[in-house]
């Protein structure tokens, strides 16, 4: 991370240390901000501006239907978020606090749903609950996001000092009372952070709503898609995009407020000290966690079974078809090649997001002005909450202004994926950097270390493991990213989730089983990546939010 060296100034200048520090932070912030502006803010604002240019935005905002849409979008997202948090807490407790065998496997299983293509999850929940079921939409959205809660909350929980809780118990508090009055308040920053991220994912969920909601339920996201892609009603789409942005900023503000109270102020313990074998009421929590796990596994098992089911009973036709491009050449490349494309693009996206997110996290951790921190933090999170179709169509109208045909370049795919995972890298790395005692840095500086040396000797070693976690989880999200990627892939650079959606939207039994076999392959690749990351984490100890 040589960018840090820009912070260095010739020694013996008259510039004060605080000015130097401020200049250094601004320089560091420029890289992620420039990326954000070029590949996110500019395209999004350009397409919204185009809507305004045509007029009629205010008419759209004045319609009662528009506000019903806002209400439904926020309502279903809030319900799904609440459900994901409730379902995630027992699993977080088990993975963080109980010394039970198979915790590593549990963490892997919980994370895997995250990468499944939304259309496939939509179909699975639609098969289970029927068409146009509101409950199915909420359940499916929650299904995707339980992983975020388990990882975010579990990460912090495993490091919470257990003694405060024990003291409360010794003083006569019931288990429940000790949980609500001691543990829960301490978990608040992680809960706030998880809830905000889950809310963003649910509020902008597209495939699930389209497939399960059918013709009946619509959200801001599906309506923006419809108006942009089918109707070419740019003013309508612009109005809805603005509402979506406003909702996202509000959700982020709530999440930030929950985090600010506690982040960095906790006395954290090694997780080895905080786990115990289950006793008494733990078994109830274990049972609840088991029930949630079963709920998470049902759709996964359904996908695997479907990949093996042919008209003549069970068979491996779908898996044999993976080396081909589907019946009648649906894909120009084989499914296996699409998987390799996915891995390549996700690797690039991860590297890019680590650089961008890492820089942003360093700046956020070291900036002392709360206003600036909040602004930068919110800006970096925005790509999670804006419609992929808005970004995709925005690219059409802006990127031609860039040199050498960047609009058509295959590097755009990792670029948009990096936009989506950078916010998560920040959420994982930032709390660790904030938990570093500044006196350590001061001590290192007093001993003669320059800013780079301080960073290498203090910040990097302490955050290295959270960087591994962030890279692993970011990679997984990039593997599963569909919305923005589908706008930019070319036939020969197609990724696995896009290939799956193409296969499943064609008639023919072979295409259907091949699509489900490809899903199974995606699940396996993901499980392997998560397992490797877990391995690296196991011997270490880290406070990350994922």
């Amino acid at each position: 991370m040589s960018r840090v060296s820009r912070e260095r100034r010739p020694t013996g200048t008259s510039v004060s240390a605080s000015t130097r520090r401020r200049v250094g932070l601004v320089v560091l912030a420029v890289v992620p901000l420039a990326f954000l502006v070029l590949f996110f803010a500019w395209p999004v604002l350009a397409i919204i501006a185009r809507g305004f240019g045509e007029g009629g935005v205010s008419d759209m905002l004045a319609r009662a239907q528009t506000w019903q849409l806002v209400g439904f979008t926020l309502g279903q997202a809030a319900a799904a978020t609440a459900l994901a948090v409730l379902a995630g807490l027992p699993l977080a407790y088990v993975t963080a606090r109980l010394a039970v065998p198979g915790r590593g496997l549990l963490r892997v299983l919980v994370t895997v749903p995250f990468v499944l293509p939304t259309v496939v999850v939509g179909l699975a929940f639609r098969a289970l609950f029927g068409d146009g079921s509101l409950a199915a939409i909420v359940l499916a959205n929650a299904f995707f996001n339980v992983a975020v809660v388990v990882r975010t909350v579990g990460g912090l929980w495993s490091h919470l000092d257990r003694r405060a809780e024990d003291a409360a118990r010794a003083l006569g508090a019931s288990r429940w009372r000790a949980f609500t009055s001691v543990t829960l308040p301490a978990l608040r920053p992680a809960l706030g952070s998880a809830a905000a991220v889950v809310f963003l994912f649910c509020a902008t969920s597209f495939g699930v709503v389209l497939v399960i909601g059918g013709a009946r339920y619509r959200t801001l996201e599906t309506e923006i898609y419809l108006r942009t892609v089918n109707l070419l009603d740019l003013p309508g789409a612009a109005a809805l995009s603005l509402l979506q942005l406003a909702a996202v900023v509000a959700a982020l503000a709530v999440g930030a407020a929950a985090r600010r109270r506690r982040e960095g102020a906790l006395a954290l313990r090694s997780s080895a000290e905080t786990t115990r074998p289950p006793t008494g009421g733990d078994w109830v929590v274990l049972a609840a966690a088991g029930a949630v796990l079963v709920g998470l596994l049902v759709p996964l098992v359904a996908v695997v079974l479907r990949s093996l089911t042919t008209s003549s009973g069970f068979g491996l036709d779908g898996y044999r078809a993976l080396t081909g491009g589907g019946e009648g050449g649906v894909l120009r490349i084989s499914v296996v090649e699409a998987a390799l494309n996915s891995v390549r693009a996700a690797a690039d996206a991860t590297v890019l997001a680590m650089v961008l997110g890492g820089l942003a996290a360093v700046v956020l951790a070291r900036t002392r002005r709360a206003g600036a921190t909040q602004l930068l933090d919110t800006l970096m999170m925005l790509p999670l909450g804006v419609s992929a179709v808005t970004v995709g169509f925005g690219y059409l109208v802006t990127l031609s202004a860039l040199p050498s045909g960047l609009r058509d370049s295959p590097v755009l795919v990792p670029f948009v994926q990096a936009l989506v995972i950078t916010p998560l890298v920040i959420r994982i790395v930032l709390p660790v950097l904030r938990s570093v005692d500044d006196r350590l840095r001061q001590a290192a500086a007093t001993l003669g270390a320059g800013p780079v040396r301080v960073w290498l000797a203090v910040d990097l070693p302490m955050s290295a493991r959270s960087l591994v976690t962030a890279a692993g989880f970011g990679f997984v999200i990039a593997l599963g990213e569909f919305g923005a990627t589908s706008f930019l892939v070319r036939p020969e650079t197609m990724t696995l989730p896009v290939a799956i959606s193409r296969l499943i939207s064609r008639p023919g039994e072979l295409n259907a089983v091949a699509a489900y076999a490809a899903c199974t392959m995606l699940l396996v690749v993901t499980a392997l990546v998560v397992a490797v990351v877990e391995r690296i984490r196991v011997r270490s100890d880290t406070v990350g939010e994922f």
Partner: protein
Amino acid sequence: MSGVTSPAGAFSTRADRFRQRGLAVGLVTAVGLTAGCSVVGGGSDDGSDDSRSVVLVTHDSFSYDEEVVAAFERESGIDLDIRQSGDAGELTNSLVLSRDNPIGDVAFGVDSTFAGRALAEGVFEDYRSPRAERGADDYRVADSDALTAIDVGDVCLNIDREWFAESDVPAPTGLDDLLDPAYRDLLVVQDPATSSPGLAFLLATIAHAGEDGWRDYWTGLRDNGVRVTGGWTEAYTQDFSGSSGNGPRPIVVSYASSPAAEIGADGTPRTEALLDTCYQQVEYAGVLAGTDRPEDARAVVDFLLSEPFQAQLAEYMYVYPVRADVELPEAWREAAPLPEESVTLPADEVEGNRDEWVSEWRDLVLG
């Protein structure tokens, strides 16, 4: 041992320091390795200056015989760079949005439903292929030379043959049968707002029942238990009983060509398209206005109308070539016969009324 619990650990022992350095080195190595299998290193083909590269913009469903395209590239010296962008609607809108700085040189896949919008927005420049008179001219839109018809497909009701063979209910033959209580809860269609076959089926009913009668027709369908899905995938692969999804409903809106993809072990299709319920959709190609390679772009349009390309359309895209003088595969003719009389509405009428019809349909059917 935890770096977080005892931050002083960062300075504690030499062993720790080594381990931490090892971790840092590991991170850097990991970054290096992943960058190695990168798309950036994969080398992109942006050398459009020296080779004669022509960008063909099309939809996701575009597929073709690679040998035919390779032969064209060899003979013409043109390097065909194919970019896919969503369905016909998304493709059309992409072309409209990027009109001032086109995303390609030639486009294929704007269909009759969206042709009116493409023409009104001036996306294409006029070009009449010398091969157009062998069939393409029959499908001209509003006497314009901007769009050249390449293939014809039909959206029709598909039925599950086995289901009807085993049931007392006879297979339906036309749209009006569906109002009969005998077909209650048997039909699944797509929302015309979100699905292009759904829209084509709505247009079929408008063409069939007339500008005045279609609302009554749909009221009847609604009262007879029609199910509406958001997209083709849910309707066909999940709700339809004739596909691999084995759903509950034996009648679905799909394509005339779909049965060709559902050939069972005995060599006959499990499903059948009802040829009296079809709506014809024509797919067009055209030279994009503002291209700096108009000559080569025209050569691509000619290629799309050439005998070899037209002959492989049925097998690769499940559509009929516009040229009547090319041979169709035998199996295809049996599984997907061309409807003799499919209905269609003029492009300008569709363009002028589409949004209104769809919104009325939503109020009527979904309430």
